[in-house]
């Protein structure tokens, strides 16, 4: 995934390969930051630098990675979904309650993913049926509602007692590699192909750049919005599976604040919050950066609140860095900015 050079030549048909541009890529910066994080972690704790750390630690944070991938699509569309944390909680709660009502675990797991997908589909439907509403208000209200339903179902209780084999999903490993990492790798490949090699992915980029022109070019924009949000919810359901497997029991307040971490990872990964720009490698690297960063701060005995501060700052800083990277500010409301934006797009569609 680090070697994005290959992808690049595949997409940029017209532009000749240039070493200069090859090295001035966001992803290289991320690789540098990742190394920096690892070095700092090593300085903090002598136990950090071991093969075991690099194999085992990702299992503690990869559940968020599953949401980062579809969130990348959402943000390339130029939208944001802040209901994912609540979706994770709702699907996990429903799965646990179903299981304890006597539904077989495999079916309960399928229900978990379906609930997530339904939650995402509702977000998508509301946006295509009520185009006047911004994505902010739609996902904000479903964020309240989904969490609210989780509370209605479970109150302040916990539900769990899952079968023995279910915990393997979060804790088990295949040939020394954690199961969750294997699944994550598969998901990265699938989403990478979906984003960079299919018309669906191209349509997503196109809509992020210019919704109207994408529609006029024959893209079924409603369908793309619907599927992007459905996928986002579906992957939140998948994340819920792994999260519940790791924690062993579920409460309605699980995954509070996931939306921040996920959005921060995507933004740090070089996806523009204005839409239209992004590559799969960046967010994947960012998952590991933020993951190892939080892990390292844990090693240094820093409390969770400081981790919050750092992630919040990272989100803001990476968005700011974007502004500087793409040359000053893109002020959409300024007259004449249309030309500037079109100009910029031509530059960036290929990169």
């Amino acid at each position, binding site marked *: 995934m680090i070697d994005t050079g290959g992808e690049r030549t595949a997409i940029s048909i017209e532009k000749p390969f240039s070493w200069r541009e090859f090295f001035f890529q966001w992803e290289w910066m991320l690789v540098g930051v990742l190394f920096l994080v690892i070095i700092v972690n090593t300085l903090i704790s002598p136990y950090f630098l071991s093969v075991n750390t690099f194999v085992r630690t990702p299992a503690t944070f990869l559940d968020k990675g599953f949401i980062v991938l579809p969130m990348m699509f959402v943000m390339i569309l130029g939208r944001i979904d802040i209901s994912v944390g609540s979706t994770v909680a709702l699907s996990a709660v429903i799965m646990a309650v179903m299981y304890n009502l006597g539904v077989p675990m495999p079916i309960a797991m399928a229900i978990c993913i379906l609930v997530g997908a339904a939650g995402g589909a509702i977000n998508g439907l509301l946006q295509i049926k009520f185009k006047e509403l911004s994505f902010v208000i739609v996902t904000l209200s479903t964020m309240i509602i989904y*969490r*609210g339903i989780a509370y209605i179902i479970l109150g302040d209780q916990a539900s769990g007692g899952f079968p023995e084999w279910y915990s393997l999903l979060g804790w088990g490993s295949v040939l020394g590699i954690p199961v969750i990492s294997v699944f994550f790798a598969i998901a990265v490949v699938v989403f990478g192909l979906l984003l960079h090699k299919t018309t669906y992915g191209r349509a997503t980029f196109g809509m992020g750049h210019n919704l109207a022109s994408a529609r006029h070019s024959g893209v079924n924009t409603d369908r793309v919005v619907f599927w992007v949000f459905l996928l986002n919810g579906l992957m939140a359901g998948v994340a819920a599976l792994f999260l519940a497997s790791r924690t062993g029991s579920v409460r309605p307040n699980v995954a509070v604040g996931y939306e921040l971490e996920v959005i921060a990872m995507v933004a740090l990964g070089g996806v523009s919050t204005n839409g239209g720009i992004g590559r799969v490698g960046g967010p994947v690297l960012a998952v590991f950066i933020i993951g190892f960063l939080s892990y390292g701060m844990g090693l240094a005995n820093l409390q969770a609140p*400081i981790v919050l501060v750092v992630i919040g700052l990272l989100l*803001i800083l990476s968005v700011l860095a974007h502004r500087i990277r793409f040359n000053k500010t893109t002020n959409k409301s300024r007259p004449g900015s249309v030309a500037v934006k079109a100009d910029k797009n031509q530059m960036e569609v290929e990169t």
Partner: protein
Amino acid sequence: MAIRRAGRAETLRELGLFVFIVLISVAVQVRNPAFLTLSNINSLLTNTAILAILAVGMMLVLITRGIDLSVGATIAFTGMVTALTIARMPQIHPLVALLEGTVLGVAIGMIIGLLVARFDVLPIIATLGMMNVVRGLTYVVSGGQWVSSYQMSTEFKAIATGRTLGVNNLIMIAVVIYIVAWFFINHTRTGRRIYAIGSNPEAAEISGLPKRRLILLVYSIMGGLAGLAGVLWVAKFASAQGNTAIGYELQVIAACILGGVSITGGVGKLSGLLLGTIMFGILSNALPLINVSPFWQQGIQGAVVLAAVLTNVLVKRNTERNALRRRAI
């Protein structure tokens, strides 16, 4: 003509909300006669006062097509810092405490405003980031400890429990803020400009309005009100904790939306806002009175918000369609 018609639709909306409030009150009263007693109404208004204060700031932010998710965190931070100050120096005047919180809030608001106005960061991103930074800082300054009632001076707690002219201070403060806000947004040039940049940013900028400065101002006001609310919150509940007011921003936004403030900018009136907050106050006051489990509250509130938003859209579509039809003839 069109303006008058839009105004009429708005009045109709407020009337509808008012009728709804009356209906709910009557229904609750039938179930539990303790609802419409003087003491309960007083406590209802006292509990709603902080929400109402915050809603004013949020309305301004929403009018400029922004959103502020950091409100809850700002309340917690300013409340915590003020409470710590009070715990160290019990002799300082309550007004100084109020000022301290407000100034801190304005500072936080200005940071957000700069991010949004100067660096064009999406409001939702900027405030989501700041929400976590500020929330984290709250835990850091307090060291994870609470400031409890016994550490606060009586004068400080009297901010929220005392009375002025026979009315609870919180209600008084809210009333004063509403009067000032009414004057500000209806009768000053800056106030009208805020509406202008919300309803049509391009036109406003071409007309030479200082868009960035106005946006900075709006977020600073929101921050200031949140800071003030933080002090009031701590004084009222006589405790400051790291997780104070977590998720409160959602209620504030919800109250605004119920009150007819449009999330797409440019629309919002104080009269509607007041009805929206009272409606929300009644919801959270009445639900426990009629034995609805507290775990239902969030779900019900969310559903009410979504319903309000969708009704807004449908009503607007309908009026627009009617207007077009009239023009065709």
